[in-house]
């Protein structure tokens, strides 16, 4: 039989205390008692909206929203980066855009996340995969759909996959994901 949970999930929220314990008098003996006071903890909220710029990588996101997967290529060497990179690390040269939407692709590495960062907890379990493309020198981090997250297998590595695109772009890298070919 599966082990039954013995502890309830904790959240940061608690009771609001209106009266904080404090000695009635301020004589040294009473104040010395303060060393035995439990620490006071309060909630602090921190919420920000950033205006995040994709800068020189913006065309990659424009490509996704038009159902095209772009990559960056170094004109002189042909070295190709699956994830956008405006300048080559080896020559310092500016890269050009190429379209790799229809390149043969496969799973290079993967995992199934049963937990995640707070933002992604509602999406668990989800499959992360590093995708490799024919003729491309580096990989692409993406999501893999169409596989059973309860039955992960090393056999998924090497599996041919195809890109799929969200119909309504969110202008995020998750606008593209992959499914078994």
């Amino acid at each position, binding site marked *: 039989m599966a082990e039954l949970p013995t502890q309830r999930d904790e959240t940061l929220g608690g009771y609001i205390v209106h009266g904080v314990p404090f000695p009635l008098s301020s004589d040294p003996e009473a104040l010395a008692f303060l060393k035995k006071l439990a620490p006071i903890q309060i909630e602090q909220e921190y919420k920000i909206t950033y205006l995040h710029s994709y800068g020189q990588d913006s065309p990659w996101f424009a490509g996704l929203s038009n159902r095209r997967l772009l990559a960056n290529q170094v004109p002189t060497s042909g070295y190709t980066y699956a*994830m*956008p990179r405006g300048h080559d690390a080896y020559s310092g040269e500016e890269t050009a855009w190429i379209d790799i939407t229809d390149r043969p692709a496969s799973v290079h*590495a*993967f995992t199934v*996340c049963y*937990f995640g*960062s707070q933002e992604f907890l509602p999406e668990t379990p*989800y499959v992360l995969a590093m995708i490799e493309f024919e003729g491309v020198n*580096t990989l692409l981090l993406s999501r893999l759909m169409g596989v059973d997250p309860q039955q992960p297998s*090393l056999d998924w590595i090497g599996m041919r996959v195809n890109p799929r695109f969200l119909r309504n772009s969110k202008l995020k890298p998750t606008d593209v994901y992959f499914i078994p070919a």
Partner: protein
Amino acid sequence: MRTVYAITGGVSKFVKARHDKTFQAVVKEAYDYAIQDISLDHKTFTHLVDGSVASYFSDHFTRQLMAGIMVQDYLGLTPKPGHRVEGGGATGGICFQEAWKSVASGHMDICVAYGFETMSHVETWKGNEFIALASDVSFDYPVGGFYSGYYAMMVTRHMKEFGTTVEQMAAVSVKNHLNAYHNPYAQKRDRFTIQDVRNAPMVAWPLTRLDICVMSDGAAAVIFASEEGLRRLEDAGARIARPLVKVSGIGRGTDAMRMADRPHVDYDDFMQNYATQQERGSDETRTYYRRLWDHGTRYPGVHSFRAGRTAGNMAYKMAGIADPLKDLDFVELHDAYTSSEIQTYEDLGLCRYGEGGPFAASGKAFMPGIDYGLELPAPPVCPVNPSGGLIACGHPVGATGLMQGVFALWQLQGSLARHFNDSTLQVQNARRGAIHSHAGTGTYVTVSILEKV
């Protein structure tokens, strides 16, 4: 460069939450311990110390910028020079080396490196989110940013390419948790079996909760001195243990923030730029690697850390180490994951690339004299993470690399039994050890060698 001695250190007990003290006061625990251990009082040491380097990773966890100066102030070190360093998980290791540089360069004669992290002010999954922000927020984080997920992807590739098994990874967990049983500073002191590790809740396949380090609150401090610094301290009444311990080598490497951007170099490039001295000099090893490449291995890919290999090679060269497994008496390395301990065995040349799994289960990295409940085919050769490492000690990020420095110092001083009140983890006749600090998906890695003089 001048000779630099690590003379004393202190660690606060690593725990899930230190709500009883602010981070400044937790650092003071480690700092005071270090000063008291050389029999100096606060006022005398404060007069003599030339400056400091502060180590903490994230401003998010405490919602406090410039926390370093708040510690400097609380310790009474103002107006002496100081600065904060940051490099993800390697922040502590970087701090160790920057304090070393301050003394080695002649800029200071006595320098204190202190580090801390307060991770308990947010819930665990929010903490994971903060940590994941140390991945590219345009491309990596939005896809499902989760460090355990990133490392799990490395594992699946390592397993596929080299045949590494989950049981071999679990052996690391068993070792480190049981080592920590004898370390009173550690957060998790437990005896587990391979099955316990595998039966723990799955976090990111194939890594379970017992394959992964925990978040912690904690602090650590290491004090460095030159010959002149030693003289000044001892003239003021300091009792500094003999034999002395010097830092005989430092190395650091880097790699791309986005794991997907790492190169996949060919055999010749690997042998020329990344192979250890020992690997280059062995016909058998060159043939072994040639065979791996013929079967499709490329380096570092996502299975290996060239930053770690670069840092190790650099530190070994400086310290005159040719055969790390033989020349090092112990290693404290950054085992944020059992799998990354295995990957790091290979990066540090304790075994060859691809052989980290069998090495983990061989017994060579275990402590002598401890019954792990495992059948280990080989006797201990070079204990790895005798302290329990990050997996069992905890990982208050900015303190972690310095904690390794303190434990390594105590090993080389032969004083571990006094500090731990338990002699089990003392490596007998330890002469030379390495500490290894690691950030991101292998973005910054430091290796420092400490040696008994």
